[in-house]
């Protein structure tokens, strides 16, 4: 019994990084479809639409700014738009296009950009 519990715990722990990596990869793909136009190919807030924007899009590599926001806030901003966190209307609400799993994957990718790439 103890052995099987140990096995289960080991397997579960082993799966966490894999699941996280899958989430980040999926988030990166979605980011390239829905976000790069404003946030930039590299995620530095320098997308092709930037010259038309009155507010600079968030630089997702900005560790200080990004760590000041919880995952829940990032999720809310993506799902319900910038207005929902008292930010710009230029950040649209994507909740009608993406499901919650998609948005969680995007948050994982943003966390990867800001805080796990050594920038």
């Amino acid at each position, binding site marked *: 019994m103890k052995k099987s519990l140990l096995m289960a715990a080991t397997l579960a722990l082993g799966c966490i990084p894999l699941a996280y990596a899958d989430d980040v990869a999926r988030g990166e793909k979605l980011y390239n479809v829905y976000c790069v*136009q404003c946030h930039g190919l590299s995620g530095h807030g*320098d997308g092709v639409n930037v010259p038309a924007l009155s507010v600079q899009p968030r630089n997702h590599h900005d560790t200080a700014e990004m760590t000041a926001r919880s995952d829940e806030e990032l999720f809310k901003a993506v799902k319900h738009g910038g207005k929902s966190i008292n930010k710009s209307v230029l*950040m649209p609400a994507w909740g009608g296009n993406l499901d919650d799993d998609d948005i969680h994957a995007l948050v994982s990718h943003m966390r990867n950009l800001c805080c796990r790439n050594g920038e």
Partner: protein
Amino acid sequence: MKQGILWAALILVGLGSAPVALAAGAEELVRTECAACHALERPDYEALGIQERIDRKGPPLYYAGNKFQPEWLESWLQNPTRLRPAGIFPAAAVKESEEFDVIDPDKLIEHPALTAEQASEVATYLMSLRHHDDLIAANTYEPGTIAKRMGQLNFSKFNGCDACHSDEPGYGGLSGPELYTAWQRLQPAFIASFIADPVAWDPHTLMPKSGLNEGAVARLTNYLKLIGEEQP
């Protein structure tokens, strides 16, 4: 894989600036020359997932008859101009630069020009593709008026449409199609229906589903009418 690339290259070369040879019928012409880039039937979006959007080379045409103004379509096919400054999939058509990402013209695909006869036949065939009669039938938009200043504010400040779209040449975002000729190109009910629920038309659209009410949709649509009618 190599064969696939060769085929794709041949198709692209074949779709160059030279007019496409007229096939036996418009449907055959469309199916042989257009299907490489345009969906003529509804893709299985659910099975293909987001990769479908990444791989897309041109707008879907299986609801062309619900979308376009036929006279405009026939004219455009003879003289195709770029409506989407950054192409159909912006991430594939831009490159990084020192300040911000810029459009890489080398990555944009030119649309072939058809002869007048081909354009007439192709436009007639495309207008028969009406997968979304249901969405048009459900739409209740009636064209109206809006003051230009109010329309501009509504388009930019209140709804942020200018982040991706331009409402006059040289002003607005580049990732979405220009909208100053939208009224000339598109059917009014399509415009209103698409603004209200773009995902119903295209599950992988890059246009956010805003949840705007009928009045707000009508105000935006009336603004596109106003600026579209100002165009030559």
